[in-house]
């Protein structure tokens, strides 16, 4: 009975967080920021290996770019010293710029690849760059929402 009166919102299945899978840092080359390309087995039936590995590889390349010690970072340092670091108030450092790019990339990956599969990547910077957190969602189905929907439909019909 309740199912007949669901409105569109109630018909929507809800996804609930089931667990989190963590992709650890790869410290084999020192403290540079790199994540392990190893595919976590928990995601075996959730996403294709290649997709996640591709994402991790891209992230790693971003981090390499961020931490690159080259002309730009050197000039930034000199400028900062020259201005007694006041320039940090106005200018974004190279690392921060790359982090912004990474955030955008993760957002895009989430939208395109991970959310449709019930997964969600969390930007590693929010976890102190220690792990790449992948939240795994499960479809709770409309069953869980039916009691409330029946109530609401009953309530609305009562009015």
């Amino acid at each position, binding site marked *: 009975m309740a199912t007949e009166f669901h409105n569109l919102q109630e018909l929507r299945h*809800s*996804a609930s*967080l*089931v*667990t*989190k899978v*963590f992709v*650890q840092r790869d*410290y*084999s*080359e*020192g*403290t540079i920021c790199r994540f*392990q390309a*190893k595919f*976590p*087995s*928990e995601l*075996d*039936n*959730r*996403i*294709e290996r290649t997709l996640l590995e591709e994402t991790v590889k891209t992230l790693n390349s971003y981090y390499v770019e*961020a*931490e690159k*010690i080259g002309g*730009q970072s*050197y000039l*930034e*340092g000199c400028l900062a*010293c020259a201005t*007694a*670091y006041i320039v*940090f108030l106005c200018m974004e*450092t190279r*690392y921060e710029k790359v*982090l912004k790019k990474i*955030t955008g990339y993760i*957002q895009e990956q*989430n*939208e395109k690849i991970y*959310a*449709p*599969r*019930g997964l*969600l990547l969390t930007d590693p*910077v*929010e*976890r*102190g*760059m*220690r*792990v790449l*957190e992948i939240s*795994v*969602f*499960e*479809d*709770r*189905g409309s069953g869980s929402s039916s009691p409330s929907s029946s109530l609401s439909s009953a309530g609305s019909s009562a009015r």
Partner: protein
Amino acid sequence: MPGFSGGGVGGGVGVPASAPPRPFRPSRYVPVSAATTFLVGSTTLFFCFTCPWLSEYLSSVIPIYIAVIFLFTLANFCMATFMDPGVFPRAEEDEDKEDDFRAPLYKTVEIKGIQVRMKWCSTCRFYRPPRCSHCSVCDNCVEDFDHHCPWVNNCIGRRNYRYFFLFLISLTTHIINVFGFGLVYVLHHRQQLDTPHAAVTMAVMCVAGLFFVPVAGLTGFHMVLVARGRTTNEQVTGKFRGGVNPFTNGCSKNISHVLCSSQAPRYMGRWRSPQAVDVQPPFLRPSLTEAQLEAKVLDNGIQNDRHSTRSKSSLDQMESQSADAEPPPPPKPELRYHGLPRADTEESSLLTDAPPTPSMYKYRPAFNSPGRNHTALTHPNKMIRGESLDSPSPTILQSSRQPSYRSEPSSLDGTTVVGGGVGGRRGGVERGEGPGGPSGTAGVMSGGMSGYSLTGRSYTSYPSSLVLSTGGSRSSSLRSAHTAHNPLATLQSEGTTDTSYKSLANQTPRNGSLSYDSLLTPSESPEFESAAHELSPQKPRALFPSATITGQPEVVSPSSPLQGYTSPFLSAQIAQQREGQLLQGSATFSSPHRAYLRAVSPPPPSSSGLPETQHLLQHNQDSSSRAPRNLSSSSSSPGARSLEPPVSPPPRGLSLGKSQTYIGEAGPQHKPRPTGGGIVLGGGGAGGGQQAPQSTSRPVLANHTTSKPGGGVKKVTGVGGTTYEISV
């Protein structure tokens, strides 16, 4: 900003995981105030009294130069004082899925071929990345921790080391400037030393001279550190004294890294963009590979078979048996599939990489909020029941992925925890909310089971932890106490590294004959329950909801995912038997096992009827029967055959060494036994290797056709045709 804030250094106020505000301690600010006073005060005096004459007598460039150096010093001083050194935010609860006392204290990771230990930080709740250290003054873990400098009242870490280093250099230069030009002034005013200008200049020179020695010394020290690529912490603690520093890239690269690298980002107080991505079902799933499909078909067949005939018949049999001994038990929960949550904790994945560094336990208080677990556990049973048959499908897939599992029906058979080794091993209990409910129980159950198998190299083992832990990796099995997400998830292996369950997998019978159902006898279940209940004091949240003696079917004994059927009605022997089976395949024994075993009352070795069960019950102890401590009088089993483990160590602190000892003890004892359940539950979860010889001898996981001869002896047929008699 750090330094003068009362709250945690680093000012991570916006982050949920930041440290709680700490009391204002004025004594912390004395050195930094003194330093500031001396620096600014002396320089101001110098500018007022000495510089006019210098600009006039020598050149006006000098005061400008001194001013520039002074400003540079001050800027670096301020940056060193106020900049977040690289504080790590506290780990969220979900990252720490494992129980503290079960997790190892150290994890090793290989950096450029050198083993580096990562220590568990109990405050921040993660394993400290290499070069990270926890500052007790600031109560934060700091990345690339150098030291805590009282003169700036801040930690020096990755983000502000450069400013600190430049501060030292510029301060040394400034001191030299002040002292030098003051000396010039004094030398030119030898006859006018009683003038205030000269007096002030001399005072400033004294201050400068006084501070020059320590500051220059510190500057030189840090120059050496930078050239060698070490932190003060590493230098002072002598980490690389005799060995190689894996963090160095050569002198010039080290220097350029300190001075020229881009400013490292802040982790605390970051602006978090609101999550704009909406996760809505239906979800895409990857297509199965052929192998997986094949496995799935295979598994399905077995599963169906099991459901339909064997298990049911065994169940009936069991129930009838139980009826003899006791009032009819509640219907058994369908926990067959549950056992095998895997824990994919942060640590567990770390574990898969690193060789084990056992013998120390974290001793962390359980991180999970009771509520969460409780929720997981409250409805788990129901859900488990309902879902046990449903949930396996993905897990089957997962399990099927593992070649080792593929042909094992036991993997599908949740109840065959025995096979439980299989399930158990996976251990990875996935923590989940809501949906994790059933898994919670399953996790608990499977944890137990998996615990056995997984703790090949596990460090801690508590019976409860075993029960609860369904950690995917070895030690992680110990940790996961939380809701097992997927009952059969444990089948998924992360497991290439886990030899324990591989061996277990190899031993589990392929014909799907593993079934605990036949093992269940209600007669001693209350006893078991109480024992189990007592066994797991540490995991109240996970265990107690289930481990009630009320004989609810759903109660999950701490022991295992398979618990479903075991908990209320499982007789001690059966429990033991199951345990034995579980242990058999698994190479890991852990004290939890032991503790777990404590709850069950193994029949005395002397009783001929149960040679196998005895073995199964591991025991480091000698198999002299002792009345089980925990077993309540409600136990209907005739005898007190409870064999109490000779060692009743607290789950914590079991070292691998201990476990090995236990194994050793148990081994010879059980060897003569035909059926070999010589599974020794090592205290610390002995490595699988040790168990291997014993376990290969017989997979006790047997399915059993239990018959109940009049004397209350149950016959259980194991795989391979061996028969065990368990006296009920």
